[in-house]
């Protein structure tokens, strides 16, 4: 038996510091304690690539299920179930978010929306914010169509997504955040109550249609939970990934030129962006029994923060991992997780951003560059984003 040890205590940083810039903290944790007890979160941080990857190899020891102690719950989506329950719901998503459907149905919609919001960005003029005028409405409108919410506007879907994700990372227990979270849940339930009968009578290629018309239709409770989970991640993550990818390119003019000259390289920029600043920086798991991971003892019931934002900069895997470099040696990153819970939307996100949005923006905005000299403001560690990215171009 190898020697095992208790996890070192990491009490030298605060949640506020983590929110401002988690990366120096993660780098020190990887050096000193890749599995650490973090009193500020009441859990263990897993910050090495190996630990974050290995935790997903055995769902019996590391469960995705959780206790619903939050004041307002969106219900258990497949994200918080283990197999075999998880696999049943995963299967109900069918092919809606997979390559054949993307080629058949969604690429055309992505392209139409990219043209439309490029027009709105141009209309706003140089100095416009990429988040407000392009990535937010673009991601929300694409998701609205993929879900099949014919009775909602992209503004609704965008608001639902942001308030759900704010709730999911409401570690301060802010009452106003919970109130917005609860209201979005009610709005989604009402929109679903209207859409489900319509899509039962007239099935289409949308996700809600697949969930209610599939060979084994989901219960209403599960439809609601899984649609809310999809809304939460499905707008915010592509919205923020596009902005991170754009900032990566704008802050590295040689790489920007490369993608401008070879739009096919935009998918590399997409992959590098999610590795560099992973929009979902951490997700939880729980130990179902006493176990050891990478030589560290973990007790039964241990709350684990799988810090993939850190794993994706692990210097033992990614040389010079703190840098944005779309030409780096290609290695599997963990931005979409690995194993059973790998992101169901990853192929759609890659097409939306890497194949459509980035090339459309670079082709449509000659001389594209940042409008400000300073680095854009970023925040968050569970979910990290660039809040605003002002652009200018040769009008």
């Amino acid at each position, binding site marked *: 038996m190898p020697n095992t040890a208790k996890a070192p205590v990491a009490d030298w940083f605060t949640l506020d510091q983590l929110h401002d810039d988690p990366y120096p903290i993660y780098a020190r944790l990887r050096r000193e304690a890749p599995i650490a007890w973090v009193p500020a979160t009441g859990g263990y941080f897993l910050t090495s690539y190996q630990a974050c990857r290995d935790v997903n190899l055995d769902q019996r020891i590391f469960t995705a299920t959780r206790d619903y102690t939050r004041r307002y719950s969106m219900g258990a989506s497949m994200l918080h179930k283990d197999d075999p329950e998880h696999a049943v719901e995963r299967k109900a998503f069918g092919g809606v978010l*997979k390559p054949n459907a993307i080629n058949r149905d969604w690429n055309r919609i992505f392209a139409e929306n990219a043209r439309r919001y490029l027009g709105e960005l141009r209309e706003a003029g140089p100095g416009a914010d990429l988040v407000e005028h392009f990535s937010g409405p673009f991601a929300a409108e694409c998701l609205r169509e993929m879900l099949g919410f014919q009775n909602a506007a992209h503004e609704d879907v965008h608001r639902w997504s942001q308030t759900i994700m704010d709730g999911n990372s409401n570690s301060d227990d802010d009452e106003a955040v919970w109130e917005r979270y609860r209201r979005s849940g009610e709005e989604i339930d009402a929109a679903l109550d209207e859409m489900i009968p319509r899509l039962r009578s007239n099935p289409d290629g949308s996700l809600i249609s697949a969930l209610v018309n599939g060979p084994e239709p989901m219960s209403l409770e599960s439809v609601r939970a899984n649609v809310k989970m999809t809304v939460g991640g499905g707008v915010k993550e592509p919205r923020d990934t596009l902005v991170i990818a754009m900032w990566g390119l704008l802050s590295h003019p040689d790489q920007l030129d490369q993608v401008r000259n070879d739009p096919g390289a935009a998918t590399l920029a997409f992959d590098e962006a999610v590795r560099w600043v992973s929009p979902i920086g951490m997700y939880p798991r729980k130990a179902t029994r006493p176990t050891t991971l990478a030589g560290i003892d973990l007790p039964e019931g241990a709350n684990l923060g799988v810090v993939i934002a850190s794993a994706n900069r692990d210097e033992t895997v990614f040389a010079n991992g703190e840098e944005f470099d779309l030409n780096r040696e*290609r290695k599997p990153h963990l931005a979409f997780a690995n194993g059973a819970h790998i992101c169901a939307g990853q192929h759609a996100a890659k097409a939306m951003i890497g194949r459509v949005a980035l090339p459309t923006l670079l082709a449509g905005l000659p001389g594209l560059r940042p409008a400000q000299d300073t680095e854009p403001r970023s925040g968050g560690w569970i979910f990290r984003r660039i809040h605003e990215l002002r652009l200018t171009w040769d009008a």
Partner: protein
Amino acid sequence: MARIVYRYGDGTTRAVERATPASVMRAAVEAGIPGIVGECGGQTMCATCHVYVADGYLDRLPDIGDDEEEMLGCTASPRDEVRSRLSCQIVVGSGLDEIEVEVPETQI
């Protein structure tokens, strides 16, 4: 005991022996065999466990299902119309006791 041989482009091989049934992907991931990623854990949601099956084993494998067919369209190394499979869909230890696969140059 089932035996899987993973062959690389440079001519080297790695072998794994399994006492219990497992997919060729899962056996590789658990044994730390390089070149098989298996990102999605065997749900045919990715194509990062792509292999070229060696001659002599192909007709002993189950047919390619719709999900596998879809993802074989997304392999990082070129698909071989005859020999390409996703190794998560090939199980040893229940009816198939040995297989040899070639690991492609890249999976991502």
